[in-house]
């Protein structure tokens, strides 16, 4: 073999290998990102990014800003986000979109003094915050986290292949098809929780100041500089949670900091929280997070403040106004659907479903579970319930009754639902039984507006009630 051939062959082999490694890394990479709300929006269409931790995810509803203030907004969050990660997320947001406003939740400044221990924040941040696109900012984020955080092995832990290569065990189509840049998140980074868990209202009041962890201050300074340099309005907020006394001291320090830098600070820590009329019995889902009712109150309050600060935004000026309107409608639809999904009475449940032509109920049944109430409800809707094994697709326009098995690709790219007929009919979500009740009928409720199945239900004949299992994104993950 000539020298030229050897050199050429070696270089070609090396380059192709690198390309294949890159391809494999991207294939295996977990592309589900908390930034899909940011990435999937048309470039330049977002007016405001709301940056922070899960407090932002659960406590800020971007669709409301669109409706109330004509401000298009997205949450840019990651779990347990410390200030240095917030800095890199803001950089990413500013590069990706061209927002006018950055609304930063300052929970990130309580690192080391909050209800989450720093080691825990580092670990969560380490596992969940590195899902931004691969670019210089991504590499710098790794470097920063290694410098600031605890005991990281940046190159082994964050390069995609070392980190994600074990996902060969969970190969599915979604890995090939999911694209955070195209798969829209109409909730725009908002994670809806209805569940309420009563909390004790924190009653700490102090005038003392406490300086946050040095790296938090350093990166807050950087955020301020970055926004100033880019000509972006920076607003601070502190979304409510169950804080401690030290955090009130940090909040006082932050108030001074904000004043010093001329940055508006809308804090819901301490006395400011009373303005919201938060109900600590019903507005929290746990000690760190608001539920939907709490999030609505906070967002509406923030929206009022923003309305005063930015009265001139108009929907017509946004090139993607139609898309944001559509997303708002879907958000409303989620709220409606959640009402149905909270219904435990079979008759009322069916009434709700059949009253709306956009709902479809895929229903399976075995004869042992046909109660009089169910039979009546079904027959009213034209479904024969005396078949040995019944399969029906129901909606307000009528029903289709058949004996054949239903196997529906209800999720499209996100997965599949099918019915498995045995002694007891099972609804199988991504190959796992989706609900654990053995007897009774099972059904899957689909919505053509949201274009996905909403939940599976089982009729518990013994209790005479419906048992729900929501097809939330969390549950889909659980069943993978």
């Amino acid at each position, binding site marked *: 073999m000539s020298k030229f051939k050897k050199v050429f062959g070696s270089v070609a082999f090396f380059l192709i290998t690198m390309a294949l490694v890159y391809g*494999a890394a991207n294939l295996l990479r977990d592309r589900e990102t908390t930034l899909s709300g940011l990435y999937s929006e048309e470039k330049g269409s977002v007016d405001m990014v709301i940056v922070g931790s899960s407090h932002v995810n659960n406590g800020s509803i971007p669709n409301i800003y669109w409706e109330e203030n004509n401000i298009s907004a997205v949450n840019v969050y990651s779990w347990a986000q410390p200030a240095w990660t917030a800095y890199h997320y803001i950089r990413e947001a500013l590069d990706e979109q061209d927002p006018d406003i950055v609304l930063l939740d300052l929970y990130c400044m309580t690192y080391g003094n909050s209800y989450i221990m720093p080691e825990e924040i580092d670990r969560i941040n380490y596992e969940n915050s590195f899902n931004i696109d691969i670019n210089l900012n991504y590499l710098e984020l790794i470097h920063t986290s290694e410098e600031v955080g605890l005991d990281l092995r940046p*190159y082994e832990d964050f*390069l995609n292949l*070392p980190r994600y*290569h074990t996902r*060969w065990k969970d190969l599915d189509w979604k890995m090939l098809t999911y694209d955070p840049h195209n798969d829209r998140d109409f909730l725009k980074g908002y994670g809806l929780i209805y569940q309420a868990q009563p909390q004790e209202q924190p009653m700490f009041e102090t005038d003392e100041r406490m300086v946050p962890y040095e790296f938090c201050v350093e990166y807050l300074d950087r955020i301020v500089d970055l926004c100033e340099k880019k000509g972006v309005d920076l607003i601070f907020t502190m979304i409510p949670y169950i804080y401690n006394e030290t955090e009130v001291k940090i909040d006082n320090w932050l108030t001074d900091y904000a004043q010093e830098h001329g940055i508006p600070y809308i804090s819901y820590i301490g006395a400011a929280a009373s303005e919201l009329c938060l109900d600590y019995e019903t507005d929290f889902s746990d000690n760190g997070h608001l539920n939907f009712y709490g999030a609505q109150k906070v967002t509406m309050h923030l929206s009022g403040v923003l309305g005063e600060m930015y009265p001139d935004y108009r929907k017509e000026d946004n090139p993607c106004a139609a898309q944001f309107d559509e997303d708002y409608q879907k958000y409303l639809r989620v709220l409606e659907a959640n009402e149905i999904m909270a219904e435990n009475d079979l008759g009322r449940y069916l009434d709700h479903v059949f009253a709306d032509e956009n709902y479809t109920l895929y229903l399976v049944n075995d004869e042992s579970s046909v109660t009089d109430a169910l039979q009546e409800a079904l027959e009213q809707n034209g479904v024969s319930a005396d078949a040995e094994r019944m399969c029906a697709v129901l909606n307000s326009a009528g029903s289709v009754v058949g004996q054949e098995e239903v196997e529906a690709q209800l999720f499209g790219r996100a997965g599949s639902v099918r019915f498995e007929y045995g002694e007891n009919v099972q609804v199988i979500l991504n190959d796992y039984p989706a609900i654990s009740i053995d007897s009774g009928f099972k059904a899957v409720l689909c919505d053509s507006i949201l274009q996905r199945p909403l939940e599976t239900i089982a009729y518990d004949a013994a209790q005479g009630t419906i048992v729900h299992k929501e097809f939330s994104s969390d549950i889909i993950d659980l069943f993978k």
Partner: protein
Amino acid sequence: MLFNSVDFLLFFPVVTILFFAIPKRVRNIFLLACSLYFYMCWKAKYILLIAFSILVTYLSALVMEWLEKQGRQRLRGLILAGTIVSNLAVLFLFKYYNFFVENVAALTQNRLLLPLFNFALPVGISFYTFQALSYAIDVYRHDIPAEKNLITYALFVSFYPQLVAGPIERSTNLMPQIKAGTRFDFENMRAGLLLMGWGMFQKLVIADRLALFVDEIYNNYAGMDGSFLILATVLFALQIYCDFGSYSNIARGAAAVMGYRLMINFNAPYFSRTFAEYWSRWHISLSTWFQDYIFEPVVWKMRNKAAAAYVGVLLVFFISGFWHGASWTYVIWGCLHALFRVLEMALRRPKKKLYKKLGINAKSRWLQVLETVWVFLCVCFTFIFFRSESLEQAFGVVGRIATQTHFSALFSGEFFSLGLDEKDFTVALIALIVLVVADWLVYHKKDIYHWVVAKPLAARWALYWLLIFSSVIFGVYGPSYDAAPFIYFQF
């Protein structure tokens, strides 16, 4: 620095490229500096121990050569003895002293409590000590002249690919190569990289995957059914082979890329039909070291050669057990091998006679298979002691295997919850099949490398990629796992 780390993935190409880029006259200095850096990545201060070993053996060799010219043979012997004792004293202090203290305390019922020596065991100390000693003995025996150039000699002892886990090189093989220097050769590079790739596959895909199951079973042996313990022991035999074999392959491959030929350390040992054959194929560099520097001198000095052979075997395996670690489990492991070897020697003639009497063809395939399986199972049995962390654990494992074995337990559904899930197990199984096929070819002296490189380009590259990506995708590494050090680092 672990071979299976990103650090090494950067270190190796950078060092290799620079090695060939710089003038030939400074390559040895450069490689020595890199080798010392490689070692210091673990614990910098322990470089002093290597330096001590290098300087003592280097100077003693020069002195022995000078004394030779002066005709002072007796003093030469004393110098050699001093060299051996001083090197072994360091080894004893770091590796065996605490073991000695504990046993003295136990023997005297804690009446004699000596102070403990609380320093970590230096990685690879047994390897480089033996390598340095072999040089001193070679010079004493006139197998090689004393090396005048300290850089050359220091590089011989600390050559990074084999520094921490061998192969234990002989001065007669490696030193001339270091002196002569090497030049870049495409074939060497290709062969070396392929060997490294195979080593990575053995380590990442097989050894570290099997370790998940083996560790789970051995760490909880007290509640395990004997069937799981048997399986874990068999898998440990495969794990340690792939673990140690992989290190040797990566070491040989890395050296080959730079143009150096290191000795083969493993040669399809589990296809051996006798224990003698097994030890000629397992950890060859250590076996031959014992053969050259302990067994032969013993046999050579004794008049009764038959008795000397038995004594030599017992001595070698006893020392070999201790060489592996300061624990009675290793000693028993060595003694078991000695026992099997001695029995094999003693029964060789009766066995021949018996075969003849029964009309058994010693060359029949079935007999070969039976003998291979027998040797493998015996080796597995010895590994119970090698793997166990204490005698209590080892005897506990043997006891449970003897009294609590129900093979139906393997199919109870519990299997996949013991470190290896179904998918990991499938990968391990496929990888083991590949290993067995590869070793079978090696055992039958098939040249796999030349078979591969003779393939058309597309097929050849596809095979390379298969090797690379099977390690990259199916390897046990990354944040989901702790990077497992090579087992033999501790020796």
